[in-house]
């Protein structure tokens, strides 16, 4: 078999494995393992899209989790404050839209609802169950969250046009921290550290192929996140194979040289921010509806470091490696939670697992700067290159014009 086909075949097997997994796995910790898979897919979207931003385009941004948070908070705020009602409340901000009313609930912060009710709660108490008020649909939150992430990606992309390397990293780190601090501080609207609760992805359950899944079932969110990951990887693959991929890599290598060769570096730098921040925001919206609560802690620098570490350990210049690495590392980190004893001394792995993770990161940076998985993929995909170069060098050598000898060498290569 052609060596170049090995990664493709492995890719198909991995996808087949994850599609079949929920139906063949049946151990007692089923929900726990499914949860790790879903979170693994979530981190895989973040790591692979960050790989496109940092590994392909060379834009070492620390703002990726902020874009994720923007998406998550957009859908959370939409679901928390916006409602559709057939009747006007008379006390909320509301707009008539085609026989229905768009109700915008007033912000009451984290005050107990038994003491201070928001306007909608007051109206519903008055209606006493006679009026059915509905939340905004989840899909609308997902779309809006993705759009908001993309718009902020555009703004940040424009702002960092002249920034490179450490300056870009510091700028995006600043943006991320400002966003987190703002969300924490705006308790009245965002409920600060208490977080915003969201409806589940399938709040009323879903029936697939005649089988009803309740909102706590893991299979629907598992496949939503898996197909979201596969969709993002497909888009990233398409981009990487297009002129976009070629130009952003040229941008990474030398912005001035790329411009001198006709590449509109401004456009592609902004585009890569828009695309990757949209993906992060999309992942954030779905994640928020899966865990059903979003807090400022989700935007912490530690979370961003985790995404960076996942991509770097696996191979930041290959988004497939980054995605696989993210899933593997998520599993390893969970497996490492099990504490053990050595000579009567108990090692609390809930603490030490992060030390282990840090050591792996340091060793990778020191001894395998291209990551641990990307070189493996390169081995299969680029194995022929060295031989190709050597064959020509032999041809150039004295006697290299001998057609028979040359043909023999070609035969060996084939």
């Amino acid at each position, binding site marked *: 078999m052609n060596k170049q086909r090995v990664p493709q075949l492995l890719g198909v097997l991995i996808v087949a494995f994850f599609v079949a997994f929920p139906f063949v796995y049946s151990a007692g910790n089923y929900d726990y393992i499914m949860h790790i898979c879903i979170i693994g897919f979530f981190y895989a979207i973040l790591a692979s899209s960050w790989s496109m931003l940092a590994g392909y385009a060379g834009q070492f941004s620390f703002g990726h989790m902020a874009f994720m948070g923007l998406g998550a908070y957009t859908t959370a705020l939409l679901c928390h404050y916006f409602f559709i009602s057939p009747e006007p409340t008379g006390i909320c901000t509301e707009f008539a839209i085609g026989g229905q009313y768009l109700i915008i609930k007033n912000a009451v912060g984290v005050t107990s609802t038994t003491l201070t009710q928001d306007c909608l709660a007051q109206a519903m108490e008055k209606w006493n169950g006679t009026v059915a008020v509905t939340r905004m649909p989840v899909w609308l939150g997902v779309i809006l969250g993705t759009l908001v992430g993309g718009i902020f990606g555009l703004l940040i992309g424009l702002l960092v046009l002249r920034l490179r390397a450490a300056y870009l990293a510091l700028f995006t780190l600043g943006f991320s921290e400002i966003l987190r601090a703002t969300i924490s501080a705006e308790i009245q609207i965002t409920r600060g550290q208490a977080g915003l609760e969201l409806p589940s992805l399938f709040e009323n359950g879903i029936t697939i192929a005649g089988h009803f899944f309740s909102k706590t079932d893991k299979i629907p969110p598992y496949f939503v996140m898996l197909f979201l990951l596969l969709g993002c990887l497909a888009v990233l693959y398409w981009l990487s194979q*297009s*002129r976009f991929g*070629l*130009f952003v*890599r*040229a941008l*990474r*290598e*030398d912005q*001035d*040289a*790329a*411009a*001198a*060769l*006709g*590449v*509109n*570096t*401004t456009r592609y730098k902004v585009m890569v921010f828009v695309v990757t921040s949209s993906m992060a925001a999309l992942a954030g919206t779905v994640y928020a509806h899966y865990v059903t609560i979003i807090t400022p802690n989700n935007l912490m620098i530690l979370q961003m470091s985790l995404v960076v570490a996942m991509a770097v350990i696996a191979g930041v*210049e290959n988004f497939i490696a980054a995605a696989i690495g993210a899933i593997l590392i998520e599993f390893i980190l969970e497996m490492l939670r099990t504490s053990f004893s050595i000579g009567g001394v108990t090692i609390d792995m809930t603490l030490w697992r992060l030390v282990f993770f840090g050591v792996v990161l340091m060793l990778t940076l020191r001894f395998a700067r291209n990551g641990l998985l990307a070189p493996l993929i390169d081995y299969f995909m*680029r194995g*022929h*290159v060295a031989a*190709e*170069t050597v*064959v*020509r*060098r032999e*041809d*150039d050598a004295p006697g290299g014009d001998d057609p028979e000898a040359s043909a023999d060498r070609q035969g060996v290569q084939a």
Partner: protein
Amino acid sequence: MIELAVSRLNKRFGGNHVLKDVSFEVNGAEMIGLIGPNGAGKTTLTNVLDGAVKPNSGTVYLNGTRIDQLPSFEVAKVGLGRTFQITRSFRRMTVLENLYVPALALGKSHKGDAVKEQAMEVLEFLTMAHLRNEYARALSGGQQKLLELGRLLMLDPDIIILDEPFAGVHPKLMEVIYEYIRRVNERGKAMIIISHQMDSIFALCKRLLVLDYGDLIADDTPENVKNDPVVIEAYLGTTEDRTGTGERDDEMRPSRA
């Protein structure tokens, strides 16, 4: 016919007046040498021509299009290409990918074999076809210079500025670069070659521009430039008093080639 008209170009970096009213024209497929001591303003002139640096005043027209306020990528599309003094290949991209960048930037389709065939022709010409799938970082310094020249062939500009194309190149590769310059010029491209290697410049060029402290002090044939006392003074240095203090000003100069 190719027409580059540079008129009264000025560029200052703070108090440093790097280009002073520089004016010249290029008409047709000329082969022009641009020489001058270090710090004369040669690279700044190149940067201004290619749009990387905006001039403080003056105009540049290429084939009737004003290019002095355009960004680099648009200048490249109008028809001016350049190489860099220090080679700037895309090191973590393959040789072929390096060549695809300018071709696709021009709007050529990456589907089909047309661009690949063009790139392979360029690589055959540069004797680098066997290296097509190697990363540029695996190439020697000379090969990376050839790769830069190859990218220009893919861009196919009307005017090519080569910044120190012979610096640090093995004699065998230098022959390839000589051949490249001659052949590209024969294809009707104008070339401006910046070099400190006078033998190469005199062998290739029929016209020389000499910059000194931002002034264009000569624009003539190599023979006339060689015998121009102003150029001799600027390039080789004399004991003439330029400072008005009665002392030599050699210490004020940047180092000579």
